[in-house]
């Protein structure tokens, strides 16, 4: 094990801040993110509203903080489901190989060939906009990357000495796969999943921006930017702070992911 590097500290620090925002928004800034203030419509940043207000007089600091829980949720769920599905499929494909692997190969081609965003837009359009449907859409596409990673690891380890030994000892397939192969194969997957969270936040906010992600009045960074688009020149604070928040969150996850990869010595 190496020691924890500066970028990793930085990434973890950013993530801790976001977690704090998500867990205890009232603690950081007690203003209600949904409360209108007709006396301060599109007000510039001030002591009362450090990030300014939007066209309804809602406090942008409170909204940016409130959005962090939604975006973290997006990062988590958009990764967890593909990870689980992809891991199971990857294990099966890697272990059994043969025709299963051939079918998998075609599926991978299909998903790789299909422009990702277009596919997600189409799936969300079918199911209707909203976070849950967005997760489903992302899972439909996202599992492939995980399955590929796991498959590769499993194929390497399938022929390793310890698996051969386990076979000789008469262990069941399930035991070999889940108790021996999986823990070893999971490490690069977990590292990848942290970086993937950064991409998912970007994707979630892009869909929010297109009106296909989180629904109002839910505050989500992409939605906040879309809402403030008309005020981009006259009241730039409405879009600026959520924009910075997205970059910051993405940075946090990427730095943490890179740092973890170095720390755990995972090849990328």
């Amino acid at each position, binding site marked *: 094990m190496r020691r924890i590097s500066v970028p990793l500290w930085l990434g973890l620090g950013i993530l801790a801040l976001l977690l704090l925002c998500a867990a205890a928004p009232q603690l950081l800034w007690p203003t209600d993110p*949904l409360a*209108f203030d*007709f006396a301060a*419509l599109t007000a510039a940043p001030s002591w009362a509203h450090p990030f300014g207000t939007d*066209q*309804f007089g809602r406090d942008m600091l409170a909204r940016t903080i409130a959005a962090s829980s939604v975006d973290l949720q997006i990062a988590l769920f958009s990764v967890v489901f593909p990870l689980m599905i992809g891991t199971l499929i990857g294990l099966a494909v890697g272990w059994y190989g043969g025709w299963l692997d051939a079918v998998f190969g075609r599926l991978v081609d299909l998903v790789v060939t299909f422009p990702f965003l277009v596919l997600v837009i189409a799936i969300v*359009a079918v199911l*209707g*906009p909203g976070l849950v449907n967005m997760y489903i859409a992302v899972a439909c596409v996202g599992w492939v990357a995980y399955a590929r990673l796991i498959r590769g690891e499993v194929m390497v380890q399938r022929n390793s000495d310890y698996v051969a030994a386990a076979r000789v000892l008469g262990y069941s397939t399930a035991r070999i796969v889940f108790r021996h192969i999986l823990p070893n194969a999971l490490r690069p997957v977990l590292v990848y999943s942290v970086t993937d969270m950064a991409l998912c936040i970007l994707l979630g906010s892009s869909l929010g921006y*297109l*009106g*296909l992600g989180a*629904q*109002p*009045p839910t505050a989500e960074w992409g939605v906040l930017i*879309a*809402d403030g*688009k*008309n*005020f*981009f*020149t*006259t009241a730039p604070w409405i879009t600026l702070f959520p924009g910075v928040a997205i970059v910051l969150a993405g940075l946090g996850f990427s730095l943490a992911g890179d740092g973890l990869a170095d720390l755990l010595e995972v090849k990328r």
Partner: protein
Amino acid sequence: MMDTKVPVSRRALLGGVAAAATVSAFGLPTPAEAAPVLGGKMIYARYADSQRLDPVFTELNVDIWVMNNLFDTLLLPTPDGKGLKEGLATKWELSDGGKTVTLTVREGVKFADGTPMTMADVKFSLERAMNPKNGSWNSMVASVASVEVTEPATVVLKLKHPDPTLLAALAMFNTSVLPKAMYDKIPGKDDDEKGKIFGQKPMGTGAFYVSDWKIGEVMWLKKNPYYWKKDAAGVQLPYLDEVEMPVIPDDATRLLKLKAGEVHGTEFIPYARVKELQGDANLRMELWPSTKVTYIQFNCRPEYKGKPNPLSNVKVRQALNYAVNKDAIIAITTHGLGKPLSSFMSSVTPLHTGSGPVYPYDPAKAKALLAEAGFAKGLEITCHALSGNQDDQNNLTTIQQMLAQVGVKFTIEQMDNASRVAAYRKGDFQSRTAYWTDDIADPSEITSYFVYSPTVDCLHTGWKSEEADKLFVASQEEVDPAKRAAEYAKMQDIFNHTGPTMPLYETPYPVAFRKNAKGFVQIPLGNNYFEAAYVEK
């Protein structure tokens, strides 16, 4: 609202005056101003492209609002959208108790390719518009039994019954005159097939013709050198040689292009940015009076998604109306540009009645009405919005907040256009956002759609008033203007107070131009007129 821009002449309102007066009503420069510049090109950015420029088969405003530059109708709407004036016909009279209409057609009119317009063209075009198999607008001229023409210049329409809306229908885009000889040469087994091809490269007697069209990107209109209209000074219209219409769906990008001087004008300025543009010394913000009304509509059927639907109770609908402060919405969404509706139809629509908001803001009354209806503990309602539409979002976010204060949980569901329209047509919505613009200078179009249940179940809401239905049927054959007005007053009263909508506001059409681009006109029906537009150097 903001009527100062269009100096409407009284004479023009009454119709049947010389073309000169007509044109001056279109906001042409007064003698104090410099003479219009002849020739050149105007670039006008649109938010979406046209789809099918065929007067009979079109369905969409993106087609309708530009077709008046390509085609003419026998009569034309006046600039205020309420009256009629001469178009391809110079005179018209009713006889036989309103069952015969005789029109005298202007002589010497030519299509854009130089071929003269004949009476055969007129007869063919009217009959094509009347054919019940063609398009969605034939009902507007369904009262016509036959079209008879005599050369050189007379058209006689025999009606099945007196029809107070027929003259207005002769000024509606679907009765535009098309070149029969050119149309006959187009291959195709029926009007729909031929119309598809014609609609790609349409030509009429209008001020311009479509010279080139990259679909979804840009359309070019070129001057019709044979156009029949002249301005007050006797100068041949149109002034411009060419109009270029690029399609730029993104509001922010479209406005940046205007501010950078890459286009001369653009439409659908977001209300949030009107003030900013008004303050820009290089630009001129124009707010044209319009028939556009914005409202929320409620499903009135007893059940929605298998559960009892509280909106079927008129008291609940009234309560929601009282609970929402329309002035706050007007301030937030339209930035003060809209005004509260005093009826379901716009105040510019003929026979509109009412003054002041239909439901003043009164949350206490709303709560009382909800309690009477048995919802003292509150209720939940969902609303279909158009995804990505800022106005919808602003309206609904505000409504959501206000309804929460009277115990109503209002859930917004964003949908893309196709899904939303499909749900609408099936009546599969609890409430939804909507807006309307008139296509005809008469209240019958909007009333048929909103109030008369046999048309589309009153906005597909399932609402129905037997009395209003009867009134509408009677008004459609009523030739006495006073009686017809009384029928309309009663229908508006019934619909406004028990109907399936929450009227929000009426708004002008916001368009903006560079200071040197002048003479564009948008009438309350939405039609864009470029015939008197010009660009100063």
